């Protein structure tokens, strides 16, 4: 559906996107994941013909973006970050305007899309008066009014409250059953919640491109625990826990707060919680806290960019 071949983009001397290639198949929800400034927005802007790449080729459907931009724009629905819609227009007028530019006449489609995006009750309000959640939904309606094959959303949930995030994700998943969706985000859990596939991008380069399930299992291989105890110095704690079977390493934690605190890393696939607890109990120390550390985006990045997880 979309194929990107060796595409680069420079802003002056700054390389925003560096020789990236990927293919997106029909009917997938793909997440473009990376920290701010990684090149996600630039990549999406090149797909949507807003920016021209400095090198490489992009095709969308059967069209090259540099040869037939109008055809490409016709099959794409795009919502830029934070939905910059005309604030002084009424929702109804705005969607009518976008519809006419896309060659859709009549109110039938407008009624359909407003019901689908749940914006019936705000159709006669000015866009500038809407809450962020409604504005985002109007943005989605704007992007989907022509029932596009491909929907591209830049940070669709940023700035929304948790309830709105859940709603928008549900809507995106619903759309993703029939359409090709690409969304960008810097939140790992967002990818886990919505995407079939994830492309991780950092400093303008792709550092991983895999199915979300694969990424999860790779992340969950080795267990990390943070342990806080009282009654022993860090040296004793490290010696005791380090000797346990299944424990690979013990490192001090910074914010000990008067306790002895350590990050304990296990071997892949071993649950080390029972042995750690038993060891602390047998030594007679007080266990203040033992928590599984979740793999953060930062960890995934470091693992992917440096290889292996020893360096974590």
């Amino acid at each position, binding site marked *: 559906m979309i194929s990107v071949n060796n595409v680069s983009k420079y802003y002056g001397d700054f390389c925003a996107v560096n020789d990236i290639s990927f293919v997106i198949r029909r009917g997938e929800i793909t997440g473009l994941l990376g920290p701010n400034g990684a090149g996600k927005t630039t990549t999406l802007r090149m797909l949507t013909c807003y920016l021209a790449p400095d090198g490489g080729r992009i095709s969308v459907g059967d069209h090259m973006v540099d040869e037939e931009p109008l055809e490409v724009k*016709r099959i794409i629905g795009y919502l*830029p970050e934070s939905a*910059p819609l*005309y604030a002084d227009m009424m929702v109804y007028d705005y969607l009518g305007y*976008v519809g006419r530019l896309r060659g859709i006449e009549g109110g039938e489609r407008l009624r359909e899309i407003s019901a689908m995006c749940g914006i019936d009750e705000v159709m006669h309000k000015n866009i500038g008066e809407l809450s962020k959640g409604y504005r985002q939904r109007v943005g989605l309606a704007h992007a989907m009014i022509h029932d596009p094959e491909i929907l591209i959303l830049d940070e669709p949930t940023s700035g929304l409250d948790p309830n709105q995030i859940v709603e928008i994700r549900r809507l995106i998943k619903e759309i993703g059953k029939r359409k090709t969706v690409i969304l960008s985000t810097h939140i790992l859990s967002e990818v886990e919640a919505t995407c079939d596939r994830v492309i991780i991008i950092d400093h303008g380069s792709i550092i991983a491109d895999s199915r979300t399930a694969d990424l999860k299992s790779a992340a969950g291989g080795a267990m990390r625990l943070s342990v806080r105890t009282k009654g022993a110095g860090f040296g004793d704690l490290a010696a005791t826990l380090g000797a346990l079977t299944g424990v690979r390493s013990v490192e001090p934690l910074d914010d000990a707060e008067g306790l002895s605190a350590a990050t304990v890393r296990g071997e892949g696939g071993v649950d080390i919680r029972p042995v750690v607890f038993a060891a602390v109990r047998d030594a007679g120390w007080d266990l203040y806290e033992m928590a599984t550390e979740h793999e953060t985006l930062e960890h995934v990045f470091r693992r992917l960019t440096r290889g292996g997880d020893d360096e974590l």
Partner: protein
Amino acid sequence: MMNYKESVVIMKKELSGYFTTPIAYIVITVFLVITGWFFFSTFFLYNQAELRGFFQLLPLVLSFVVPAVTMRLFSEEKHSGSFEILMTLPVSARDVVLGKLLAGAAFVAIMLAPTLSYAVSAALAGSLDPGPVVGGYLGALLLGLAFSAIGVFASSLSKNQIVAFIIGLSICLVMTLADKFLFFLPSPFLNAVEYIGADFHFRNISRGIIDSRDILYFLSVAAIAFIGTVRLLGDRR
């Protein structure tokens, strides 16, 4: 292949945008007050049924008013980010610029319409020669089109509406006043400068002499500014 449908949709949107906010009413009121004052304050002094006072001042007034009308057309879109949405809809830069330019020119036409009452007043007061009036309004529309194109060009240069206004105003003022600054030049040069200036062509037309060279002049200015804007916006780098 030029598709006017998109341009018409954009023009209608921009034009109705003017009238759903107070901008249109404020600009039109200011315009009518200024031109009305200049028209009627000299009308009875000359004791002649003509609109010369009104048309003499029109290029200068439009130099201020038109850039004020057009300054938001691209600056606001770039400032709010809606420009990205507009350019990712299936429209070309040419469609967009044409739509906005036509909206600006149509606004000038709407703004000029109430001044027809000056012509009616003059006709009631004495025998009005229709030639200069017809020529004057044709010239005013052409001038409005040319200045709108310049204003749209200025608007595409900056995110800041004030900056866009000042750029547009400067270009329009230079075109209006060029031959008045440079009266000390030797006459062959002055003639050339005069020919480039908008005021010279407007004076010709508003005398009631409708010459294709003057019409061509205004259309050329509009076309150059239009092509410049399309180039500027079509360059996606």
